[in-house]
């Protein structure tokens, strides 16, 4: 007994000492934006990698929210101790390029196998990861918005509980049937809820994509905020409350949206696939998950974080980091991650594994997000991303709250964004 204990202790010591003996030390930052076991899953995957690969030690640092993570990476880099690898919002690509902090993965993808690997992700996720013909980001914690509907409310309104609206017009029609008023004319249940607080541009991008217009160019230095089709999309959003009266007026809080759905305040809601687990656990009624309705085409934005490779890394570190990213994106690891968090697995191969197939059979809603990827586009991302998107957000809020017309709000936003982006052209 004593001996085995001693042996275990020595083994543990040897293990603990291993990182010091490693040929390559890596530091890796990761944020967590969903509840649940996300942080533990990353840690255990990292541990598994280190156990399987001799000579590499990886320190995975949980750095809080996305905002914290990018701030920490920026400050660390300025202080000369940047991590070699970090998961950061896909939309921060241009900020990181502007700060001259990251390097493309292509440098290390020299073999044919590696090149195939780079090409093996869903193109929708790669749009936010590539610019100027180089790949700077590898999709990891990625999501997309979907439509959730309350089947009981559909039944009560005399609608088919298995069929969500397929088009903009259908959403309005169904929404009208689903909007319930009490005797004094006050609304007790809204037809649809598209939250617009904080980052309204994201869900709004669903509407613009469906209206067949792209908000920013791939170089990240030009935006099309005042395109007539964007104006039309915003008019549609505003009219949901203003003329059709199927959605609550004013800004709708993102954070309270799932709760409002559970409370029967809204019969349909648009929100991220990251809410799947939450809704499954807490909705007191039967619900469905579907793609966002289509207009000129189907469409949705993508969202979430990518792996970035930092410039300061030595040749060996960069190679090791590259290898780690490749490993963690392999179907087996990726499936574990997707099941633990609800993020969309970014490579088709992952969905072919037995574990994922079994998971999808048990909970088919997860397939909706995957199938929607075919229609998805890059999340709005430009140079000075935070500032440009906040201008756009303000414009959307101004139109939603009736301060300005859609046309006017977007025209002002375009002018402001142009002024900021001019130096980058």
């Amino acid at each position, binding site marked *: 007994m004593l001996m085995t204990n001693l042996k275990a202790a020595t083994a543990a010591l040897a293990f603990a000492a291993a990182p010091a003996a490693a040929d390559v030390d890596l530091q890796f930052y990761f944020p967590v934006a969903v509840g649940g076991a996300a942080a533990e899953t990353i840690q255990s995957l990292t541990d598994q990698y280190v156990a399987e690969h001799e000579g590499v030690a990886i320190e995975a640092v949980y750095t809080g929210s996305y905002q914290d993570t990018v701030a920490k990476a920026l400050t660390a880099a300025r202080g000369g101790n940047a991590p070699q690898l970090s998961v950061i919002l896909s939309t921060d690509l241009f900020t990181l390029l502007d700060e001259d902090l990251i390097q493309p993965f292509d440098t290390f993808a020299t073999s044919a196998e590696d090149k195939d690997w780079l090409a093996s992700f869903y193109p929708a996720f790669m749009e936010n990861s590539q610019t100027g013909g180089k790949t700077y980001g590898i999709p990891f914690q990625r999501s997309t918005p979907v439509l959730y509907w309350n089947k009981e409310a559909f039944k009560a309104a005399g609608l088919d509980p298995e069929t969500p609206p397929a088009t903009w017009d259908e959403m309005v029609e169904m929404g009208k049937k689903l909007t319930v008023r009490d005797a004094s004319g*006050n609304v007790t249940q809204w037809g649809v809820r598209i939250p*617009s607080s904080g980052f309204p541009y994201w869900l709004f991008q669903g509407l613009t994509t469906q209206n067949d217009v792209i908000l920013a160019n791939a170089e990240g230095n030009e935006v099309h905020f005042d395109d007539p089709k964007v104006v039309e999309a915003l008019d549609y959003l505003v009219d949901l409350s203003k003329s059709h009266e199927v959605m*609550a*007026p004013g800004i709708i*809080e993102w954070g309270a949206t799932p709760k409002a759905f559970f*409370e029967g305040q809204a019969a349909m809601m648009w929100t991220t696939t990251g809410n799947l687990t939450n809704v499954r656990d807490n909705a007191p009624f039967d619900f469905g998950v579907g793609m966002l309705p289509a207009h000129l085409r189907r469409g949705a934005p993508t969202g979430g974080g990518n792996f970035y490779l930092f410039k300061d890394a030595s040749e060996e570190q960069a190679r090791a980091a590259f290898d780690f990213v490749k490993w963690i994106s392999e179907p087996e690891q990726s499936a574990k991650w997707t099941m633990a968090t609800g993020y969309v697995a970014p490579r088709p191969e992952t969905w072919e594994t037995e574990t994922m197939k079994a998971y999808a059979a048990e909970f088919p809603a997860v397939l909706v997000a995957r199938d929607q990827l075919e229609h998805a586009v890059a999340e709005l991302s430009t140079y000075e991303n935070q*500032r440009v998107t906040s201008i756009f957000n303000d414009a959307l809020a101004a139109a939603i*709250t009736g301060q300005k017309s859609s046309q006017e709000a977007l025209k002002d936003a375009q002018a402001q964004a142009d002024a900021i982006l001019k130096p980058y052209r």
Partner: protein
Amino acid sequence: MLRTRGWIEAWLLLVPGFVFLIAFTHVPALVTIWNSFFTTPRGRRPARWAGLENYETLLSDPTFWKVLKNNALYAAGTIPLSIGIALVMALWVNRQLAGRGLVRMAYFTPTVLPMIAVANIWMFFYTPGFGLIDQIGAALGLGQTNILGSADTALWGVMVVTIWKEAGFFMIFYLAALQTIPPSLVEAARIEGAGGWTIFRRITLPLLMPTTLFVSINAVVNSFRMVDHIFILTGGGPDNASSLLLFYIYEVAFRFWDTAYGATLTVVLLAFLMILAIGQFVLFDRRVHYR
């Protein structure tokens, strides 16, 4: 000789405190002004002299003007109301009252709770449809509200939370002051036939003047400093309708990473505080008997 020794002693006593005061208040305040004349350094582009460029940007920045207007309204709304409520609270708690301890405790709880946490609770109160306000409204047959989600009301929603948070804190100062007013003074006035209102106006209020000065300086500073709840309640929205100067500074400097423009905005904030402080001293000076 003895005198110089005293001087040196005094200066030595002041050194530790002043190192920190100067390093984190006076120097940064001056450096802020200096930096407002440069551009923000980014990546490989170092900062360069910008002259008045940042100030030109400021003058033509619609968000700045909006935020400034908001902050003026916020100050004008929260300062008198929170002080007034604090005074009423103190007067109530200072007299014979059933359950006085509990009432005092209730008034004081907001001071102890972190703003960032209570903001979440207030957000529930304000939530359209199933929030507390709307539940009460529905029981009375009223329709849904969307206080934080409408441009006309968002700032008011934020102001209510501020007043709720501040009044109890200010009450403590008034209460302490009230308890030092000699009861004999009030008795004497009563014997002379003065009514409650006259006593309050002629005796209590003047004697509370130094407290009012102290509390109002605090309130002024807080009206520019308290932005925690905005992070949770509205994020400054909709379209900056509830954004305040310091919140905007945070956004510019730590979200957009435009530190030079952040410094320029800070200069405006500093200027405001100075003007208000001077104004206050002048306003109160004639009525306050300070040692």
